[in-house]
């Protein structure tokens, strides 16, 4: 089922504008991520789609039908909460079968349906247990099973992986992606973790202060972030964002002379962005590189994040570069960070002027 949101606005009592006239279209069968820092309105948006919050203005349509005025139970959506919200006094079977109990399915049939879904999620051994007797990963699967059991048109997941420990999270991520693929049901999930969004979603909406900063596939969002906010938010190591000016067809950024994208007049101020992964370290001075002293080395396992300090006029700019294993420069030496051609991004007035 498709979901379309038009002019969605939510103002909480007290004047907090959580959603600001937001338009969004989510396609049939899509695995869609709402990504943003805490307080950006992503959870409010999910809850508004579920019907747990009433929008101040705007409309929500699911499968082409306007559901703005419908209560949550009549929208045919299933939601998995961040804390899973498994009913503590019911065993796994009763929890999974609960949506069917509300739909007045006879006990024998709903228990059979619960057992079938549980089997699919490898929960068959646990049917008689209470939620408190399950591990975090098992609780999450029970919550998913309960959502699946009611065969909704849309799944809504609120931070589905945030309550799992780091190792389990990666397993659960793969599992979740495969499950969504198998079910083919339109799924919207909220996350503050950009790597989760990049790994799981077909498309991502990056949200900032109640608005959508950018919508796109993970590759688009990663390669061509539309604003400096998206650029700084996406990527496991933060992007280097350095102020600079346009001068005679080139950019002057922190002492480096770099090629400029077409169409920028001289003297304009720009922000030059390059990911640490998209820069190399040169031991000898170059004009098209950021100079600095190596101050911090952070081991990332197969690579190392190097921080250079001392670029710019005041000498206080930091530039980070990822270097492969075994190529770390010694701390205290001088080095030059060379951006890869075509991988750096130039922002003019917080709009992407183009890659260079």
């Amino acid at each position: 089922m498709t979901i379309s949101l038009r002019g969605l606005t939510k103002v909480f009592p007290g004047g907090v504008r959580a959603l600001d006239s937001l338009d969004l279209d989510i396609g049939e069968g899509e695995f869609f991520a709402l990504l943003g820092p805490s307080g950006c309105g992503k959870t409010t948006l999910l809850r508004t789609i579920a019907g747990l919050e009433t929008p101040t203005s705007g409309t929500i349509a699911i499968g082409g039908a306007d559901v703005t005025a419908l209560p949550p139970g009549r929208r045919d959506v299933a939601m998995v909460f961040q804390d899973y919200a498994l009913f503590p006094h019911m065993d796994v079977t009763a929890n999974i079968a609960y949506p069917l109990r509300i739909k007045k399915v006879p006990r024998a049939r709903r228990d059979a349906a619960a057992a079938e879904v549980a089997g699919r999620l490898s929960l068959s051994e646990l049917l008689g247990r209470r939620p408190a007797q399950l591990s975090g990963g098992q609780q999450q699967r029970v919550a998913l099973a309960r959502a699946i059991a009611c065969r909704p048109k849309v799944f809504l997941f609120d931070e589905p992986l945030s309550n799992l420990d780091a190792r389990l999270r990666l397993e659960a991520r793969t599992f979740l992606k495969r499950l969504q693929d198998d079910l083919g049901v339109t799924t919207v999930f909220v996350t503050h973790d950009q790597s989760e969004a990049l790994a799981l979603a077909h498309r991502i909406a990056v949200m900032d202060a109640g608005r959508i900063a950018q919508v796109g596939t993970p590759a688009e969002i990663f390669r061509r972030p539309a604003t400096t906010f998206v650029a700084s938010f996406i990527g496991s190591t933060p992007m280097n964002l350095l102020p600079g000016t346009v001068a005679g067809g080139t950019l002057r950024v922190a002492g480096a002379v770099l090629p400029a994208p077409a169409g920028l007049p001289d003297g304009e101020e720009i922000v030059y962005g390059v990911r640490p992964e998209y820069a190399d370290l040169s031991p000898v001075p170059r004009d098209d590189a950021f100079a600095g002293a190596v101050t911090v080395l952070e081991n990332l396992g197969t690579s190392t994040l190097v921080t250079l300090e001392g670029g710019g006029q005041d000498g206080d700019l930091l530039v980070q570069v990822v270097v492969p294993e075994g190529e770390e420069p010694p701390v205290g030496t001088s080095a030059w960070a060379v951006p890869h051609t075509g991988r750096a991004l130039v922002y003019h007035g917080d709009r992407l002027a183009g890659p260079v």
Partner: protein
Amino acid sequence: MNTVRHVLGRLASAVFLALVVGFFALPMLWLASAPFDATPSITVSIPEFTLANFRAILDNPYALGSIGNSLIQAGGAALIVVVLAALAAYALSRVRVPGRDALLYVLLLLSSVVTGTAAMVPIFELATRLNLVDTHIGVILVVSGGLLPAAIFILKDFMDATPTSYEESARVFGASPLQILRHIVVPVVRPGLATIAVWAMASVWGGFLMQYILLRDPAKSPSAVILYTLYTEGGQPNLDLISTFSLLYSLPVVLMYLFVSGRYGFRFHGGIKQ
């Protein structure tokens, strides 16, 4: 020197503890022995065993009936308090009401006045005009009114501690508010409800003043009031009847405690990932 001081210290603390235990245990011992004693006094002694006191209490026209009255009044009040307090506490916990906390504190403050002696005259006046004097329902309503504020206050804490995501989850699956209350909220806060029910029953069971004032007919009086009438013709407390009746009077409350703690206990199963 040190060991002597240590031994003396241990000895002193043991004596002190024995005195404290004795102070609290003696009345219990009296309650256990006096009913079976042919000539009970207010001292604890090995009884001259007899069941005659029980026969005598059964011959009293009001004694057994009064336990029934106590059950009706305590049970009725507990039912009203649990149902109304649960609904009010749920609403107060989940709905934003301006001045909610102030309302709760004022209620709590006034509740001690409502059941207390200060409001006795107006309550009696009110009960008279509503023809509630000398009825079970009159007693039940007045004592429930006194217990409700504290019950709401305590239950609201239980409700506040229950995550709203349980209810929201059920709402998304299409459960109606009453279904949510029945399937989710009541089972989850059941230890709280059991606590309130026991507390309300025990308070009404032990209550004397309101019952004494509101009831004329000894056939409707609860045990606590009947206990007060067990005097000899000479005006002396009739100790054989009083002790025997006290034992019968305390048994139901003890049984209720055992039943409730065995059945409902203080369990919380979890199910929200912390």
